[in-house]
């Protein structure tokens, strides 16, 4: 197996009709599907597919796409998913290497360009990489191993049943002869890829790497020595540097601009207007004026010297203070009913007592440490783009469309991502680079976003008002549950008329609450978007989990019960709940049979987190424990936060215990790392994070006004407890589900410590004396 061969030349692939991932979540909105050019008729003819089968371009498991072996024995494994800190460039190749019986010290990892026909789906989001590609990557490694075994048997002229691959060699058991993978590579490559159903997968007991957590990060050494290449680090001969002045209001555009002063700045070469893109935003650049220069600093100075007047358009009045009132008013009235079990109104009327609470969570920005950045070059009718992209195939398709080229003539190289969190699923910056390269006659141009660009022109996490009501029995147990969730939908980024949350947003923890409550009514009143709304790590789970898990704790307090015991009672006995009976038609794109909501697993993480935290222990004054649990991305997570609040209202977090049941793990150390990181991000969301608008403009410019958690305020000790899984059972997600339980667990802990209930995030100075 020398250079990877284009797998499309062989009939190995079961691929789906090409369409982008975001269209899947909005499949019920036929009009929108037509509006962006995908015939709804095709969809109607398709049987519903789940998991990786249901993703655009599905999966590929051919070793011809992913594995090459050099004659010196070096095994190169292609990673087709984007690395943004979740460890996928270690995890995916580890799966292949294990089944391949490769020696990890002789494995190199190559990054796939955007090419889903060859590699399968590459949209690195939705906490899907491992759960969708564990099985295809195992088969890929097993197929390559089988080809090497067959080549050795042929060389020795012995039955293949007598040979066995073992740690980078093939062994002839009866004679003890061995041949290295390098020696066999060429002969193995010429053999047919074995049929999928004939493959012999390893017994998980024999895994060398999977589940062991002993391999270091493949990029660790490069990262700590400054060699790792991120999107912002691309350097090409003759490259120019660009920054862009973008409209400060969503839907705004350039009215007039004057470039003369900018062109006087030393190093500035050209000023170029980028065409406006009126809403819907889609993944398009918002337009504006680019300054192209010898280096980034000169471009930034040139931009400062531009004189631009903006036509702000219809969102010029967007004001977060006023909008909060609008959302809260909507949450007080009934709206679209999205789930209705029993009769909430009758049960509430007959209840012993009633409770209600309103919660509010603001917009957030991803603020990846590496701001968006991309480089493009056009030559001989072909365009190459380099950048930090979560969705390289979408980048490729959209660059091609914008340049009027065929996607075959566009190559998208994926660098490391300096953080993603959903921001880099939207490749507007890649399209900007391509447009600017074209404006410079194809010369390579790198566009770099500054921090204020990143905060001012993001795809923001939505802003929500969550209204909850419950009727409880004489013991305080809820018998009636009403949740109204009001938030501008991500769909608005593709269809400005959309005002209701989509199935994929409702399925993020509001509609699919698996509580043992007979009368449940979930409503979704309308909300209008005035900014680009996008996916942010764990998405709508953040407001939904915050409201639900805070409210359960409020009900526990009202009932005078222990919050953990009360939460377990509300979850009810261990049972498998079909998501369909909860009104969740989406179920994270997974089969409702393979992935029911398992309340036993939810109970278990609550119990594990509580036990490990020492739940019930006596704490000094000003300290408290809070618990929350949430099911998302088909994983179950519970957190116990221990908080200390001093006389001045300053919050510190000595310890957090997180229990995670994501099924079996490929790389337990990275599961821990993702939980630790999610915990810190959850603390940032709870304590500091807020993007607000005034006059249509974002009020935060940099990390002084958009604050994120720093070391001194981060939890001092984060203990992650992984519930053991079974490799024969479906896996869950890891990258996102750790975030949602943290803000409610923290606020529940603050209540335990101080008696003060936080219903509006961020906490910021609400506890200050």
């Amino acid at each position, binding site marked *: 197996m020398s250079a990877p061969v284009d797998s499309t030349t062989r009939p190995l692939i079961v691929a789906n009709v090409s369409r982008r991932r975001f269209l899947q979540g909005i499949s019920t909105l036929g009009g929108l599907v037509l509006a962006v050019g995908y015939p709804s008729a095709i969809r109607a003819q398709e049987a519903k597919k789940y998991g990786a089968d249901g993703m655009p371009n599905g999966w590929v498991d051919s070793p011809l796409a992913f594995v090459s072996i050099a004659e010196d024995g070096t095994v190169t494994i292609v990673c087709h998913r984007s690395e943004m*800190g979740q460890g996928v460039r270690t995890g995916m190749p580890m799966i292949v290497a294990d089944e391949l019986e490769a020696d990890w010290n002789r494995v190199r990892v190559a990054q796939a360009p955007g090419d889903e026909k060859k590699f399968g789906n590459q949209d690195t989001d939705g906490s899907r990489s491992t759960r969708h590609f564990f099985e295809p990557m195992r088969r890929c490694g097993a197929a390559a191993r089988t080809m090497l075994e067959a080549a050795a048997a042929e060389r020795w002229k012995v039955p293949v049943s007598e040979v066995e691959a073992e740690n980078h060699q093939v062994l002839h058991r009866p004679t003890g002869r061995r041949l290295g993978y390098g020696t066999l590579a060429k002969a193995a490559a010429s053999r047919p890829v074995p049929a999928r159903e004939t493959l012999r997968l390893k017994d998980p007991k024999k895994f060398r790497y999977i589940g062991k957590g002993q391999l270091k990060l493949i990029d660790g050494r490069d990262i700590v020595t400054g060699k790792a290449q991120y999107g912002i680090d691309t350097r090409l001969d003759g490259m120019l540097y660009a920054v862009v002045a973008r409209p400060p209001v969503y839907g705004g555009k350039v009215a007039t601009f004057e470039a003369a002063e900018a062109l006087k700045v030393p190093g500035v070469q050209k000023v170029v207007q980028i065409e406006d893109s009126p809403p819907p935003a889609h993944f398009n650049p918002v337009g504006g004026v680019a300054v192209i220069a010898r280096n980034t600093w000169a471009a930034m100075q040139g931009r400062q010297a531009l004189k631009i007047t903006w036509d702000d358009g219809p969102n010029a009045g967007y004001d977060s203070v006023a909008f909060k009132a609008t959302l809260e008013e909507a949450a007080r009235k009934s709206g679209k009913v999205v789930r209705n079990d029993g009769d909430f109104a009758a049960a509430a009327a007959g209840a012993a007592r009633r409770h209600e609470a309103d919660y509010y969570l603001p917009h957030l920005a991803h603020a990846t440490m590496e701001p968006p950045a991309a480089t493009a070059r056009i030559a001989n009718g072909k365009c190459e783009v380099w950048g930090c992209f979560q969705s390289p195939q979408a980048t490729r398709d959209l660059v091609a469309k914008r340049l009027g080229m065929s996607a075959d003539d566009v190559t998208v190289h994926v660098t490391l991502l300096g953080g993603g969190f959903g921001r880099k699923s939207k490749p507007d910056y890649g399209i900007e680079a391509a447009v600017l390269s074209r404006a410079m006659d194809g010369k390579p141009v790198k566009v770099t976003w500054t921090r204020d660009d990143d905060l001012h022109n993001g795809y923001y996490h939505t802003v929500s008002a969550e209204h909850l009501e419950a009727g409880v029995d004489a013991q305080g147990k809820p018998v009636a549950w009403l949740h109204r969730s009001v938030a501008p939908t991500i769909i608005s980024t593709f269809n400005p008329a959309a005002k209701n949350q989509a199935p994929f947003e409702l399925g993020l923890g509001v509609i699919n609450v698996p509580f043992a409550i007979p009368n449940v009514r979930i409503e979704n009143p309308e909300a209008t978007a005035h900014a680009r709304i996008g996916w942010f790590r764990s998405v709508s789970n953040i407001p939904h989990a915050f409201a639900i898990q805070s409210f359960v704790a409020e009900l526990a307090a009202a009932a005078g019960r222990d919050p953990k015991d009360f939460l377990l009672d509300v979850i009810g006995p261990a049972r498998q709940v079909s998501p369909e009976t909860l009104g969740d038609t989406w179920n994270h794109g997974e089969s409702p049979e393979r992935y029911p909501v398992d309340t036993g697993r939810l109970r278990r993480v609550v119990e594990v987190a509580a036990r490990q935290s020492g739940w019930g222990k006596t704490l000094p004054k000003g300290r408290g424990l809070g618990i929350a649990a949430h099911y998302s991305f088909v994983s179950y997570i519970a957190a116990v936060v221990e908080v200390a609040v001093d006389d001045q209202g300053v919050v510190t977090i000595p310890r957090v215990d997180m229990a995670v049941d994501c099924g079996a793990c490929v790389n337990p150390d*990275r599961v821990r790392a993702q939980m630790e990181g999610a915990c810190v991000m959850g603390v940032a969301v709870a304590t500091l994070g807020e993007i607000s608008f005034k006059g249509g403009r974002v009020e935060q410019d940099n990390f002084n006004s958009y604050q994120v958690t720093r070391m001194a305020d981060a939890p001092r000790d984060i203990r992650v407890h992984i519930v053991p899984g079974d490799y024969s059972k479906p896996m869950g997600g890891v990258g996102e589900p750790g975030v949602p339980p943290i803000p409610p667990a923290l606020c529940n802990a603050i209540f335990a410590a101080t008696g003060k209930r936080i219903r509006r995030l961020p906490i910021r100075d609400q506890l200050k004396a």
Partner: protein
Amino acid sequence: MIPLDINGKRQNVDLPGETPLLWTLRDELGLTGTKFGCGMALCGACTVHVNGQPVRSCITPISAVANQKVVTIEAIGNAPIGKALQAAWVDAGVPQCGYCQAGQLMAAAGLLARNAKPSDAEIDEAMSGNICRCGTYTRIRSAIKQASARRGGTR
């Protein structure tokens, strides 16, 4: 022409004196290990050493570091402290996305140079200028302690 001494290499750059060291390193000299994060000394991603002291290169004009000894992430491993920290970082699996880690390492190297065995509070104080959005803080703290212990740091 401004004479710079970067990682022991002396070179002249033909740029306006107010050009920040960050962009000079990254765009003109090809040393991209030093990262841009905020441009206002708020996040620490751009931290380098000037005469052994951690400095935010994004707000440091090159005119201010003419003939001063600048060391970046690319060369910090040549010194024992930097080497120990890099090993501890890899061993503890500190990086997630890794983007901020060059700045974290430079800040940590500055800390250990002046305090061989820092306490938790001293680590917090030295490191809280460096943001990690992936949230690797607990591992950064343990890696600093590990490097300190391996170097026989005593209090």
